[in-house]
């Protein structure tokens, strides 16, 4: 088979397609994160930990979530950072 790199013109097209797909996906994801601000979120974390909090903001690398009123098993933590590596999924209503 012919490797795609043998057709430079096709590569440019493919690159542009990929860039368009990436930016559409990223923009939509960023808008999703922005829309959660001040919403109640349920975090489902590793070790079967489930906690609720009010979402604040995410950093752009999706490493940390800044939240308020985090209901931990031992009480409410007013301000908290949650490591995204600890999170399996989270839900909210729209």
């Amino acid at each position, binding site marked *: 088979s012919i490797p795609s790199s043998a057709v430079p013109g096709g590569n440019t097209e493919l*690159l*542009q397609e990929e*860039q*368009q797909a*990436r*930016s559409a996906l*990223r*923009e939509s994801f*960023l808008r999703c*994160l*922005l829309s959660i*601000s001040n919403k109640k979120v349920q975090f489902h*974390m*590793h*070790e079967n*930990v489930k906690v609720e909090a009010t979402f*604040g*903001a*995410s*950093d*752009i690398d999706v490493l*940390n979530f*800044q*939240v*308020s009123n*985090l209901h*931990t098993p031992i009480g409410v*933590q007013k*301000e*908290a*950072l*949650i*490591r995204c*590596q*600890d999170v399996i999924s989270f839900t909210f209503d729209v």
Partner: protein
Amino acid sequence: SWRSSVAPPAERPGERRAAEMRKLYGEDASKILAMEAAMQLTFERNCDLKRPKYWPVIPLKL
């Protein structure tokens, strides 16, 4: 100018990031860059104001 008398500035991180973004996002790079900048600023300002602490203290998963 006074600039010419000092050592040339190191590569500016903003420019490098813009070039990387351009490679990843093509024509939409500046739009994505602006959205990310706004979001990161909100995150950092919230952290400055609220001083959140990591929960749990020890990561669940390394």
